[in-house]
């Protein structure tokens, strides 16, 4: 049964032509890949494009996979984050789809029509969306993908200390914005005056 195999084995079986192995990889990782892409791009349509591209690359590059060299999820999340950030840069956050049903990407305008609790969540979602790019990626990997600091640092190809510094700066900025209560200002570079984004 494909469901019993580890990722490395499924990749090898995918290369060998077992369609069930690729289907199992999709079943296992589609949700987390799309979830990360959705949070990082801000739009469902772009997240779908990113997700399809990630699995296309997985399919095409599977023959080069070296079992044991890294976790497949690290590679999947890294490619997802890179593609999503590229999409964000190309389009800019101004065109983010506004879904009032989704507090994670809600805006202040949407939140004004919601209950108070939803307003708070909407402001937090908007504040996260307004973080500088790498801080936003760090927060999203932690809270959407549920990665440990070490795992997320590997995805972002930075040291654990550098990743934790991104988290510290991100949360400091989130607290400041939530305390201010104002709408975050976003820019194409993802910067919101949060004091830098380097890791």
């Amino acid at each position, binding site marked *: 049964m494909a469901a019993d195999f580890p990722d490395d084995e499924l990749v090898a079986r995918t290369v060998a032509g077992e*369609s069930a192995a*690729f*289907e199992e990889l*999709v079943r296992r990782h*589609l*949700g*987390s890949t*799309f*979830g*990360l892409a*959705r*949070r990082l791009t801000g739009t*469902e349509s772009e*997240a*779908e494009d990113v*997700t*399809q591209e990630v*699995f*296309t690359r997985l*399919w*095409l*590059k*599977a*023959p*080069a*996979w*070296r079992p044991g*060299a*890294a976790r497949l999820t690290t*590679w999947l999340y*890294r*490619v997802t984050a890179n593609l999503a950030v590229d999409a964000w840069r190309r389009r800019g956050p101004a065109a983010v789809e506004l879904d009032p049903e*989704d*507090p*994670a990407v809600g805006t202040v305008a949407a939140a004004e029509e919601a209950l108070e609790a939803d307003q*708070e*969540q909407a402001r*937090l*979602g908007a504040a*996260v969306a307004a973080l500088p790019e790498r801080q936003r990626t760090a*927060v*999203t990997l*932690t*809270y*959407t*993908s549920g990665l440990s*600091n070490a795992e997320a640092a590997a995805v972002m190809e930075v040291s654990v200390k550098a990743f*934790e*510094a991104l*988290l*510290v700066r*991100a*949360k*400091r900025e*989130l*607290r400041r914005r939530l305390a201010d209560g104002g709408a975050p200002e976003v820019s194409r570079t993802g910067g919101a005056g949060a004091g830098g984004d380097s890791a």
Partner: protein
Amino acid sequence: MNVEDFQDLLDAYGPDLNAWQDGEREVAERLLEDSPEARRRLASAWELEARLHVALLPAPVPPGLREAVLQVPRRHPRASRPPAWGWGMRLAWGGSFGAVLASGVLGFVLGAGLLSPGDDPLESVDVVALVYGAEEDLP
């Protein structure tokens, strides 16, 4: 450790002190005993943690995406593609050309005297990389 140090650790490691390293946790627990402000920061960190988890819940997969992804092998049949990945395919497709090129490279290296005593010889992996190129982003 002062309150600001404690805040940085809360932001970096999260508010669950059980997940911290022993030494830092013990120092933090002593600070919490003495500092009402530290206790307030810890409570606030738990609140932000909970709110971030809710705000950033993974989005549900839209209908149709799974089927579209499952069509990837059909849309991109590997057998008809040029040998972009994998040593096996590269050797199979480009072995002859690679052998000629490798001979040329080796001849150049020997001719230039780079393998004379005292010099670092080229690693075999370097020659291979010269001939076939380096792998991309897969480990």
